[in-house]
Structure formats: C-alpha cells, structure tokens
C-alpha cells in the first residue's frame, strides 16, 4: 500500500474545487489560458477563412504554412494537452515527480518515450520545413544510402553506378518509391499523420466518452438506459463498415477519417467511465456536494469528471496505438487519404515491388511498428504509474 500522503498526489485527487472561485475570477489560470488560446485560434481561423485569399497560405513568415482543417484541429488538441495535461504537471511538481519516479522504473518506457518525442516532434515541425515529398520521374526506386540494387530495377540511377549496381545517395537517404518520392520525406510526413490520428482521435473519444459515461452514471434511470443501449448498438454495429462506406463514397480525407474514428469509437470508453463514475457517485463528497444544492452539471463537471480522469487517461493511452494501426490498415487497403503520405499508404505502394525494392514497404513498416511498440510500452508504464488498482 502506498502511504496515505503520497496517495493524494494524483490527477484525480487534485482538489478541483480549489481552482474555482466565485464570480468573474472563477476562471483559473489554466482555464483562462486555455480559453484565451482558443480565442486566438478562433481569430486566426476567421482570418484564414475571411481575409486570406482563397486557399492561399495562412502564414508566409517565418515559413509558409497553409493551415488545413486538420491543422486547426491539431492545434486545438495540442492546446488541450498543454493546458490539461502539461500545465497541471508543471503546476504540481510534487505530483509530477511522483509520476516520474513511477514511470522511470520502466526502462523500456523511458527509451520509448524519448523515441516518441523524437518521432512526434519531427512529425510536428518537420512538415513545416520540409517540402512535401514530390515525385521525380528521374529518381524512381532509388535504394537507401549504403545499399545497392541492380540497375535494371531503377529507372535512372541518381547515385553512383558500379558493376551494374545502382548505389543509394544522400540525396535520398532512405531511398525512393516507384514515383521517385523520397522515403525519408514520406516517413516524416507519415509521422505527422500518425501524430494527428494518435492525438486528435483519442481527444474526441475522451470528450464524448467521458461526457456520456458520467452523464449516464450520474443521471441513472431512463437517460442511463438510453445512452447505454445506444452504446450497445454502437459497439455491436460494425463501424468498420461504416468507415469503409463513408470513406469510399465521399473520398477518404484524413480529416473525415479522424472525425469518423472519433465519433464512433467512444463506446467502450463511455462504458468504462460510467462504471468508474458509478462507484464514485456513491462516495461521500459527491453526496455532500449534492446535498449542498449543487446543480447536476456542476456535480458532473467538478466532481465526477476529474475523478475518473485516471481511468480515462489510461484508456486513451491504450487507444492511441490501435488507432494508429487502424489508420495504417485503412491506408493500406487504399481507403485512406490518398493525398497524405501516411505510412500505411507507402507500405501499400511498395507492396508490389517488395521483391525488387524491398525498402519501400519495409522502412515505413519499421517506423510504424516501432512507433506502435513504443506507444504500447509508454501506455503500459503510464497505466502502472496512474492506475491505483495496479499497485501492490
């Protein structure tokens, strides 16, 4: 058992009431910061849609960046993460240290974490500075640097040729695809895709799942029954088909994919949150709040939600790798966004060349695999660190 005082330092044990005061200044730094940032984003959004000429880039300095729908979503997601995950950690160093101690025990997870920071950091900033992989019909099937393939495989060899073998060059460190697109660039853009899928989708799932789960648990009765029956249906309904159908019919944009993933996959999260919240609901502080005349919404927002946050975070950390795998599978089946060089898409593109140009499928595959592996390790460690039930 943990000592009683340590036990207090958890997300769920933050005294959220502490953070609210009455009247105007009831906004905490956290919420205020979040809302202010959202406001800035909203203004930029308006600027992008009203002022900036049709489809022109939103920013030209310091770099040209045409902010897409998905980028906006990503920015909002990142803000949410910063204000509701990073800020509390910063604000509560004792808690952070405790989590860190727990987390640090798992070596693999620490290594994975570093790897993921690298991957996602590169995915986040890389596309801002690196041009989209463009086709080069004169550089098809170039092997990665240090490797060589028979000249007949490549159309035109960019690197040095010796003994009928085409050698890779630093111009394309990881080689090129059949379209002459640099695999390294594709891989970096693929990181962005994985980042988007891995962050935005869980956020949508968490928001809807938590809302439904807590409302169901708190309201009970007919509301609970209806919501949970809906979840039953949603869980039973083969949403995989729904994705396929919609994506195929209305063209697979990554944005649509992410949104559909998000709004059809929250069922199990809602169930989990509900059962957790049901236990919490019986606890004294909720009863106390109720008898003090707190409104339903207040009780849910201020008491139930914070108290199931660990469950939700743990759940989300386990969702991320499977979502990334899912997106890859979709792209692989040719149902993803054909304009976005996601890993699955590159794997698929290289599939028929696997015997002559093995690197096309293999390299993004390795990145996909290691990223998912790292996410699983981190998720596992996170669960150990956060989940009180997992403690001895």
């Amino acid at each position: 058992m943990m000592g009683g005082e340590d036990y207090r330092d958890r997300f769920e044990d933050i005294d959220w009431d502490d953070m609210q005061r009455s009247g105007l200044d009831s906004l905490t730094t956290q919420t205020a910061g979040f809302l202010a940032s959202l406001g800035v984003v909203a203004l930029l959004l308006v600027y992008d849609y009203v002022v900036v000429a049709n489809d022109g880039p939103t920013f030209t300095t310091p770099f040209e960046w045409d902010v897409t729908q998905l980028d906006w979503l990503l920015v909002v997601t990142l803000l949410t993460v910063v204000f509701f995950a990073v800020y509390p950690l910063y604000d509560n160093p004792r808690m952070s240290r405790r989590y860190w101690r727990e987390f640090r025990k798992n070596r693999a997870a620490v290594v994975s974490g570093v790897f993921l920071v690298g991957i996602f950091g590169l995915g986040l900033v890389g596309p801002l500075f690196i041009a989209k992989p463009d086709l080069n019909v004169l550089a098809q099937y170039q092997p990665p640097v240090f490797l060589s393939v028979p000249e007949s495989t490549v159309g035109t060899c960019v690197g040095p040729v010796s003994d009928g073998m085409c050698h890779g060059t630093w111009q394309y460190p990881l080689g090129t695809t059949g379209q002459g697109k640099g695999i390294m660039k594709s891989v970096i853009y693929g990181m962005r895709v994985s980042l988007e899928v891995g962050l935005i989708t869980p956020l949508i799932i968490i928001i809807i799942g938590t809302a439904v789960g807590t409302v169901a648990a708190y309201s009970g009765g007919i509301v609970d029954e209806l919501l949970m029956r809906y979840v039953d249906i949603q869980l039973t309904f083969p949403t995989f088909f729904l994705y396929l159908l919609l994506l195929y019919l209305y063209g697979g944009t990554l944005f649509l994919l992410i949104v559909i993933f998000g709004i059809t996959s929250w069922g199990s999260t809602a169930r989990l949150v509900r059962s957790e919240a049901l236990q919490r609901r019986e606890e004294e502080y909720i009863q106390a709040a109720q008898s003090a005349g707190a409104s339903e919404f207040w009780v849910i927002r201020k008491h139930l939600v914070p108290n199931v946050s660990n469950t939700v975070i743990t759940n989300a950390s386990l969702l991320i790798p499977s979502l990334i795998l899912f997106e890859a599978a979709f792209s692989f089946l040719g149902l993803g966004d054909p304009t976005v060089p996601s890993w699955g898409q590159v794997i698929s593109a290289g599939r028929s060349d696997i015997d002559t140009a093995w690197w096309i499928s293999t390299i993004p595959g390795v990145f996909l695999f290691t990223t998912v592996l790292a996410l699983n390790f981190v998720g596992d460690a996170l669960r150990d660190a956060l989940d009180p039930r997992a403690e001895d």
Partner: protein
Amino acid sequence: MKWYIARRLAWTVVATFIILSLTFGLMAASPDPQAASYVAQQVQEGGDFEEAQESYERARGLDQPLWERYKNYMIGMVTLDWGWSETRSQPVTEAILEAWPYSVMYATPALIISTVLGVAIGLYSATHRNSLEDYAASAFAFFGISIPDFWFGILMILIFGVWLGWIPIYYHSDVPWFSLQNVQQLIAPTLVVTLSSIASEMRFSRATALEYVNAEFVKTAKAKGADSWRRVTRHIFRPALVPLSTILVGDILNIVLVSSYLVEVVFGIPGLGQLSYKAIIQQDVALVLATVLIPTFIAIVGNLFQDLAYTVLDPRISYGER
C-alpha cells in the same frame, strides 16, 4: 435469472432490428456505382441519360418506394432470402456459404492456438511474475500487438515465399481442403492471425490472472497443500475464466472485423473478409448488407453468450438487479 435472460434475448432482437435498419438506411442513402456505370455506358453509346437511369432502377426494383424496399428487405432477412449479389451473380447466401470455409480454415486454428497458448502463457507469466520467462513473454506480447498484421503478412510472403520458397506465394483455392498443400498455404495466414491475437490473449490473461495470483484464496489453497498445477488450474484459472470469456468474444470479432480483411487481402484468400471488402468496394448493396450482418450477429450472439456465460461461471452475479 429467467427474467434476465428473457430481457437479454428481447434486447438482442431489438438491437438486431435497429442495426439492420441502420444498415439499410446507410446503403439506401449511398449512390450506386453500378447505376453510374450503366448510365454512363448507355449515354456514351448514344442513349438518353434519364431513360437509362429509369430502366436501371426499374430493372432492379429501385423505383419502388423506400418503405416498400425496406419491408421487402426485412422480410427477406427473416426468411433467409438475403437477396441477389449483382457483382457475383449468385444469391447472397450462396456467396457467404462459399466464402466462410476459407475464413474458418485459418481462423479456427488461429483462434484455438492463440486461446490455448495465450491463456497458458499468460497464466504462466502471472504466476512467475518478473521471471526471465515472464519478461520474454511480455516482450513477445508487445511485439505481437505492435506489429501491423498486413505488414507482417507481406514480410512473411517476402521471406518465406519469395526468398526461401517454403510457402506458396499465393493462395490456391483449388487444392483439396484436407491436403498437405492446403495446410502449407494456410500456415502463414494462420500465423499472422495467431500472432496478433495471442499477444492480446497473453496480456489480458496475465493481467487477469495477476489479480488472482496474490488472492487470499490461492494462498489458502497452497496452505491446504494444493500443488502449483492445481492452484493455477483450479484456483486461478477458474475464476479468471469469467473475464477471459469476454476476450474470447472480442478476439473472434477482431478476427472477423479486422484481421480477416487484411489477411485475406494480403494472402488472397477468398473468405468472408475478402467477400465483404469486395462487396464494399464494388458497392454490391445486397452483399454489403449481408456481410455487415455476419459480424453483427457474431457480436450480438457473442455478447449474449458472454452474459449468459457469466451466470454459469460466476455464482456471485445476481441478475435481479439488472
């Protein structure tokens, strides 16, 4: 308990009905590429656009009111007349009957192996926590849940098919089912499916068993003189069976819904996954509807079975409350 089961069954029927209706609505709302191509062809050859469209709809009964079509569809569902597949020119039920053995051929061994081995290894890991074997098993499990099965399939074909020539590179549906060749060509897909599900089985059964490994009653059993085999099989496995039964259903569904697609597409197996993938790609309305139903039924029946299994497996659960 009877009341509970009755309610549970009633809900199963209602859920099926709702899902069927949803699926119908979805398909009715989506455009029909068969129509698009037919009309485009007629127009290219000098036909009239609207006329072509009308004759297409009339010939397929699409000119009937929506309600009529919905009614016919529902009646057809109940009477096992699932319609006619336009892209395969055969009754939908026949298409499914033709396809399922191919899926079963690799899914069943995969399911059995992954369940038996997965649970066994999971139990072993749980009872030998932090041992070298436990770490090895965990590493293997992480590998298994992280590797994308379609990619793994491609690698298998590359390495064992193309390079080493141990397995055939594409599926021959014409070899007899009970032949060495068939076994040989099923090894790779079975392995791919097994790997992905064994990993989750291992993780889950380890986690579940861990809850019981340190349980008082296991210590009691030890104190009674039960050997470790008996403790694991009787005192840990048996109570863990309740949560484990849930993952079995989940596992089957996962194979039917996800793995079957990828594995059958990669290996070219003409099973249910391929059938439904093609149906969706080619927008074969009747076939899509039917292939949506199969996993749905599996899910519904699976959930029902699972809930009922709880009544058998866990004497503590009381059904009066639900």
